[in-house]
């Protein structure tokens, strides 16, 4: 079994109104000095294989085909 984490983030230049709202809320809680917040998603995936290279290739395909919308998002695969 291989455990992996796929992190999906908005591309640079894509407006993130939710991140902005969180940034303002942090300011309201007294956390001054927050320059910016961008919201993303994390997927923890457990694969049956023990072949690391195969797992990485498969996770990359999953990111491209479903987990991220590559029009607006980037993703990173991390095998844990």
């Amino acid at each position, binding site marked *: 079994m291989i455990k992996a984490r796929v992190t999906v983030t908005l591309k640079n230049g894509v*407006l993130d109104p939710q991140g902005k709202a969180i940034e303002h809320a942090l300011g309201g809680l007294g956390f001054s000095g927050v320059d910016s917040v961008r919201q993303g998603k994390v997927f923890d995936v457990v694969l049956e294989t023990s072949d690391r290279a195969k797992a990485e290739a498969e996770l990359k395909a999953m990111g491209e085909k*479903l987990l991220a919308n590559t029009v*607006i998002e980037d993703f990173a695969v991390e095998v844990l």
Partner: protein
Amino acid sequence: MKAAVILLPGLNRDRDMIAALTKISGQAPQTIWQTETSIDDDVDLIVIPGGFSYGDYLRCGAIAARMPVMQAVREKAEKGTRVIGVCNGFQILLEAGLLPGALMRNASLKFVCREVKLEVTNAKTAFTQGYSQGQVIRCPVAHHDGNYFTDPGTLADLEASNQVAFRYTADTNPNGSLNNIAGIVNKAGNVLGMMPHPENLIEPAHGGSDGRALFESALGLVDA
């Protein structure tokens, strides 16, 4: 022309769409469940209605776009069959790659349910020929993720090839869409996606019938 409506779990505007198509075309549309892998040759118009397919999980329309029926819709679209996606249907068409761009959370972060005004930006498409160029029509919207976004190159390309079919008037843009975009067609002109709900304004009982000409156009009921 024969119409068909795609059904997916979580859609909730399917009955409104079926009622509108039945009223305007005089016959009930065929309904096609998400697991179907082919669509009959004699279907001339495919409509994906609005709602919250798969609970908007992952991203609006993301799961629906990967269901078997969408491959069948893609094959029909490539052969020139007309396809309309309204609201969640628009989100599904974008996620399926049948139209360019993406729909993001409304800039206000609020769900918006109200009437807007739409400018018919291109009255030459198969879906808008029942309107006149630049005509302003009323149309209801109801969505949380209708903020149209794409990269600058694609946006310039959409504008240059007259693929913007409908624009919100500047003072009624409900979601922050780039260039006030409310609806676009593909390059071939046979696939339309739009956030507003024309099916909810097709008869006097709805308070107006500004949406009717869209379906009359798509169904070939107006003179080109």
